[in-house]
């Protein structure tokens, strides 16, 4: 089951440059929340603060509190422990190129020391099913490499890989930005189904996409969160002038 995420007073820095300013936000469990905003507004930085990917960049640091369920992200939890409970899907599909489809999906478990072959088989099948990819790849799980799939399939493979470690939260950083409309549609359908089991945070440039998949939407501008509300409200009746300008296409 998904868990909620609470974000309090988060500031993020790249060296001396501040990228996020005092973000406060609550993500509801088992809902999808979209983060929108123009390029460079800090929404990717923000999503990477939720699973401590931000700090893998040299000189980058984060201040503030993030709680995922009962887990305090920046206090007493190791980054690896945390990331096993928070799956991430990246902008560009990044399957492990030298691994078969099966090994790609199983990698999160295998490389953390899980060896039970029979259970691995089950997890791989279940994860590929959840990612709506099973029927397309089931006949060459071991023969084909992850990199031999099409772009859309690769992204669904990455989703399956993230689901295989059974996270509670799924972070998606512009997962469809490199995909055609058909593949995008498939992944959006997927997000709809995955909401039942996971809490989903999705960064997107595509406002229609945010409107289609997310119950809640946050609008970021220049490192600040300008508005956060029900998606319908943000798009129909935004309370901030800057949000209105952005969603009506007057800038950005």
């Amino acid at each position, binding site marked *: 089951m998904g868990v909620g995420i609470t974000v309090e007073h988060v500031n993020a820095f790249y060296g001396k440059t501040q990228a996020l300013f005092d973000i406060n936000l609550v993500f509801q469990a088992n809902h999808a929340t979209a983060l929108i905003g123009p390029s460079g507004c800090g929404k990717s930085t923000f999503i990477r603060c939720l699973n401590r990917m931000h700090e893998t960049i040299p000189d980058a640091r984060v201040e503030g509190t993030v709680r995922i369920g009962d887990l305090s992200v920046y206090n007493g939890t190791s980054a690896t422990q945390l990331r096993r409970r928070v799956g*991430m899907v990246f902008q560009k599909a990044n399957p*492990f190129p030298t691994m078969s489809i099966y090994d790609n999906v199983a990698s999160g478990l295998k490389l953390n020391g899980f060896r039970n072959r029979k259970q691995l088989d089950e997890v791989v099948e279940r994860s590929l099913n959840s990612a709506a990819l099973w029927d397309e790849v089931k006949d060459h799980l071991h023969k084909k490499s992850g990199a031999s799939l099409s772009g859309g399939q690769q992204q669904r493979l990455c989703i399956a890989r*993230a689901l295989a470690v059974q996270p509670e939260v799924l972070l998606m950083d512009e997962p469809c930005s490199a995909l055609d409309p058909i593949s995008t549609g498939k992944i959006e359908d997927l997000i709809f189904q995955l909401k039942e089991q996971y809490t989903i945070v999705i960064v997107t440039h595509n406002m229609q996409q945010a409107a289609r998949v997310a119950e809640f939407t946050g609008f970021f501008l220049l490192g600040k969160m300008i508005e956060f509300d029900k998606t319908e409200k943000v798009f129909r009746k935004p309370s901030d002038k800057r949000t209105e300008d952005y969603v009506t296409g007057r800038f950005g």
Partner: protein
Amino acid sequence: MTTLAVLTVVLVLLPLGAIFAYLIYKGAGSINWAFLTQTPKPVGEPGGGMANAIVGSMVILGIASLLGVPLGIGAGIYLSEFGRNRYGDIVRFVSDVLNGVPSIVIGIVAYGLVVLRQGHFSALAGGVALAIMMVPTIARTTEQMLLLVPQAIREAAYGLGIPRWRTTLSITLRTATSGVITGVMLAFARVAGETAPLLFTAFGNQYWNWKSDQPTAALSLQIFTYAISPFDEWHRQAWAGALVLIILIVGAVAAVRFAVRHGTLAGA
């Protein structure tokens, strides 16, 4: 443009082809069963072979690879994954300098490190000398190959909660395997023909030796000794030895490439 490219390829391949052809012309006639299975005969007696030198070369190169490959790959991993700082720059600089040190000087170093301490020449000393020569080449190619692995691949692994050391070994290094192997083979082929560092480390031996702490024959040493001798029979054997050495190197490189290609495709 294409013509020019083809022309340069021919120019590059020509010396290699010429060397190989001349070696076959000069040496193939002297390669026979006795050459591959017997030890050298005393001067004046016909026949005899380089079996002990062939095995000795393999032993010395085996020791060198055992020591040099893990060290070189380890250093390469450090430089690429952890050494993007001043200390890493120092290691890179030292490694490049080491790459340029004349091989005979490295032989002297191994002499001081191993031979003086052991009290006699040995295969181990020869292996150490060659290992020192392998390290910088392997380290720098490994570094370059690991840097070619996109950051996105590492992030994918971190995102799954895979620890950094595990990511480096099982994801990054594995993704770069074929390039790293190329570097290892380059270093191997380079030291396989080295003579100078073996002169006062392995020293050479006219007889069989199975102990790694005793003077050991090596093909390159045997070729050197035979080629500067005044005997026609020995000259012929030196040519044959050179041909065998090249075939062994080409064979080893081809075998590893084959194994890697089939290993990674089937690799679960």
